[in-house]
């Protein structure tokens, strides 16, 4: 039996401005920020006291006490306490994967309306106790007698007080994401100049989006911030050119400006069935058409850590009978400027497209004028799990604003994964 399927639409979204690490939100927890983003959405769409079908969100860096983070946020928000919620985690793909899950339940008729999003803080980071100390404490706990416990506890040494700090590296390679991407960038011949240009355009586009009021119904001020703290409207190629490389050694091309900074923030998007939207008198911004997730073997294989979207997009295009050029807007998450440029280079390369994607022809180039037109992560910042919610809401609005069209979302994630989706208005 083929289950009945219907369209899920994006109605809008809300986020708090993204802050740089250890700055405006240094005292805010994941729960504080996600609750703030949710309450902003409740306010914007008049959802106070409503029971929604699902709230799906997550965080990449999470305290162990936050095992039920999203549900706790719902309970702390003005939504009805009867709204169920669950956490997911797929690194930087978390927010978009959450939207896919909500959209799928709507399409299957299992729910009418849901919220998808994510939150992350690199300031209020979950420091864990030292792994050796943890082992000693657990051993002590297993002892039956006080004497036995004491004997175990006497193993504690000063060095055991050093906490375990969350590490920004791939467990299986020991390389940071930036070092991985530096290799990919070098392989694909991505120049410093091209990366700096992309970074500058991100800042200028986001600044323009704020200026013309595009962000007014997407962002709610929080803890004194009204705009993303990382945004540099007055940046220039000359200033960017002065920065020293931070990845890929002294000859590297990746700097602090053309790589996303550590940042804090939360974002959510509201998805519903067309019927629910109509009953509420809310005009849908865009349809959530389809999505695809891919993963690559960056450990034993020869593929770059952040190249999975380059595989996910062609599969999604194939299933929907589209070409890469059949889009009016492209949202390619700027984890690093070079990640965006490597992906675009791969799609133009005959070897990559025939040998790795199994296609007859390259996907070809895109019109760069349609790429990240309202800025992306290099300007806004990138609180890992929050990025998907930011992009879904912003792209839906941009498509609606231009009176229709088709948009492509591409987000790379740690672990060699990539999440991509198509929106249409």
């Amino acid at each position, binding site marked *: 039996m083929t289950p009945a399927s219907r369209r899920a639409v994006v109605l809008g979204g809300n986020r708090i401005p993204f802050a740089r690490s250890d700055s405006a939100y240094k005292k805010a927890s994941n729960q504080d920020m996600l609750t703030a983003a949710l309450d902003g959405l409740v306010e914007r769409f008049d959802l106070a006291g409503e029971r929604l079908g699902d709230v799906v969100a997550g965080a990449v860096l999470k305290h162990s006490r936050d095992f039920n983070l999203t549900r706790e946020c719902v309970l702390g928000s003005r939504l009805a306490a009867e709204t169920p919620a669950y956490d997911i985690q797929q690194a930087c793909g978390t927010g978009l994967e959450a939207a896919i899950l909500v959209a799928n339940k709507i399409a299957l008729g299992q729910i009418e309306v849901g919220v998808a999003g994510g939150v992350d803080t690199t300031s209020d980071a979950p420091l864990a106790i030292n792994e050796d100390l943890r082992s000693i404490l657990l051993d002590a706990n297993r002892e039956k007698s006080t004497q036995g416990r004491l004997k175990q506890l006497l193993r504690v040494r000063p060095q055991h007080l050093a906490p375990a700090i969350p590490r920004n590296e791939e467990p299986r390679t020991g390389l940071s994401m930036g070092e991985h991407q530096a*290799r990919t960038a*070098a*392989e*694909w*011949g991505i120049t410093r100049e091209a990366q700096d240009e992309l970074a500058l355009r991100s800042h200028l586009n986001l600044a323009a989006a704020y200026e013309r009021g595009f962000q007014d119904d997407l962002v709610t001020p929080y803890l004194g911030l009204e705009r993303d703290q990382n945004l540099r409207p007055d940046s220039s190629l000359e200033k960017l050119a002065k920065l020293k490389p931070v990845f890929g*050694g002294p*000859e590297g*091309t990746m700097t602090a400006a053309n790589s996303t900074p550590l940042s804090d923030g939360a974002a959510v998007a509201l998805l519903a069935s067309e019927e629910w939207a109509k009953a509420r008198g809310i005009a849908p911004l865009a349809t959530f058409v389809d999505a695809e997730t891919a993963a690559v073997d960056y450990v034993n294989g*020869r593929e770059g850590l952040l190249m999975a979207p380059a595989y996910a997009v062609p599969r999604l295009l194939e299933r929907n009978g589209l070409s890469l050029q059949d889009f009016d807007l492209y949202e390619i998450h700027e984890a690093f400027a070079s990640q965006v440029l490597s992906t675009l*280079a791969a799609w133009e*390369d*005959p*070897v*990559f*497209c*025939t*040998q*790795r994607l199994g296609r007859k022809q390259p996907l070809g180039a895109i019109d760069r004028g349609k790429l990240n037109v309202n800025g992306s992560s290099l300007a806004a910042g990138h609180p890992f799990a929050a990025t998907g919610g930011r992009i879904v809401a912003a792209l839906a609005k941009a498509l609606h604003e231009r009176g229709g069209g088709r948009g492509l979302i591409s987000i790379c994630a740690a672990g060699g994964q990539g999440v991509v989706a198509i929106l249409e208005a």
Partner: protein
Amino acid sequence: MDRYTQLVNTPVGKRVAKQVGLPKPVPLKRHVPGAPVVDGKVLVGGAPGGRLAGPIARVLASIGADVATPLRPDLRAAAAEAGLDASPWTPKASVDHRYAALVFDATGIAESAQLEELHAFFGPTIRQVKACGRAIVLGTPPESARKPGERVAQRALEGFTRAMGKEIGRGATVQLIYVEPGAEGEIAGTLRFFLSPRSAFVSAQVVRIGAEGGKVPSDFDWERPLAGKVALVTGASRGIGAAIAATLARDGAHVVGLDVPALEDDLKAVAAGIGGSALALDITDPEAPRAIASYLKKEHRGVDVVVHNAGITRDRTLGRMDADRWNAVIAVNLSSIERITDALIEGGRRAVLNEGGRVVCVSSISGIAGNAGQTNYATSKAGVIGIVDAYAPALAERGATINAVAPGFIETQMTAKVPIAIREAGRRMSSLSQGGLPVDVAETIAWFASPASGGVNGNVVRVCGQSLLGA
């Protein structure tokens, strides 16, 4: 491996050799049956406008090579078409890569200013070549160039590869392969040979591939290229000759070993070890050419591969050399080759040498550079090069080829008797800083002998580790 090579490859030896500035020979990797042609990544580049990107990519695809290419549309398209999943490469990306081989199509270089393409490609990568790696430049024979500027530039490649051979170090080799226009499809056998450990002791050579070769069948068995073929090897009872016989047998040939009656026992032992036959006679005997021809016709209905390996030395400085020494060397090393070859190719289509036959002569570095005490030997071995030049056109007409190897210092019983100072000089005065092995000569002959080497005619290839003598 000689003692010195063993010594400098111990931890202490390495340090001492480095501090004192002694030669640092690397134990050379040699062919092991069943092993891949290239063990590691192959980086393929080329000057824009070249005509060999496709053929090179097809050869590399056929050997299952792990390839990288620069992100130039023509190179990428050629790789894609050949079904090669080639990694993209840029000079910056090469920092932490190690390459088993660098291959460069220089046929697009049409004027001297474009020689800069060599610098741009090899400059960032020469130090990333693995031990016993390969660098191969493919060009257009200068004499086939369409314009003077192209002829100049293509001729210039030779200086580049010879100099790079002296720089590359660590057992790696550098070659120049001139591919005649129209011979693009003939490069497989030669490219495989020079990429592989079979060419371990061959460096800084210039090879020409012509267009008359005939195609390699698609189901060609590269592990047994001589299956069903008959090969005659003269001087097969010992040393290099025995190695040639064994190598051709390994490649599938039935080998007829030939040597003087005095060495018949040794010869029979060699033949028995490789499932071949033994033919004991003196090649300087006036009846020998006819006897050989009729034996081959009767027993094997012809011969496919003829290796003129038999040779003698009768050293004396010229003023002290008697006529017997002179005449014996010329007779064995030169005249008999002419007479036997004539006997095997006479008779047109009914000749003993089968269609597509391969004649391989053994010259010597002595014949190229000259050697004190060897006026007779050097004369004979230079004459062998003359045989290659003289017979190549006639053999080409019948789909056959004639080529020569010119061994340098090869570790044999003969060289073991050379006084140690001269022996050490012979070993170390080369880019590979060591002597070669008989099998190195044999592998080169096997490449000439292969049905896949139809386009290789009239070449003299030194197997000398880029010896400084006569270079």
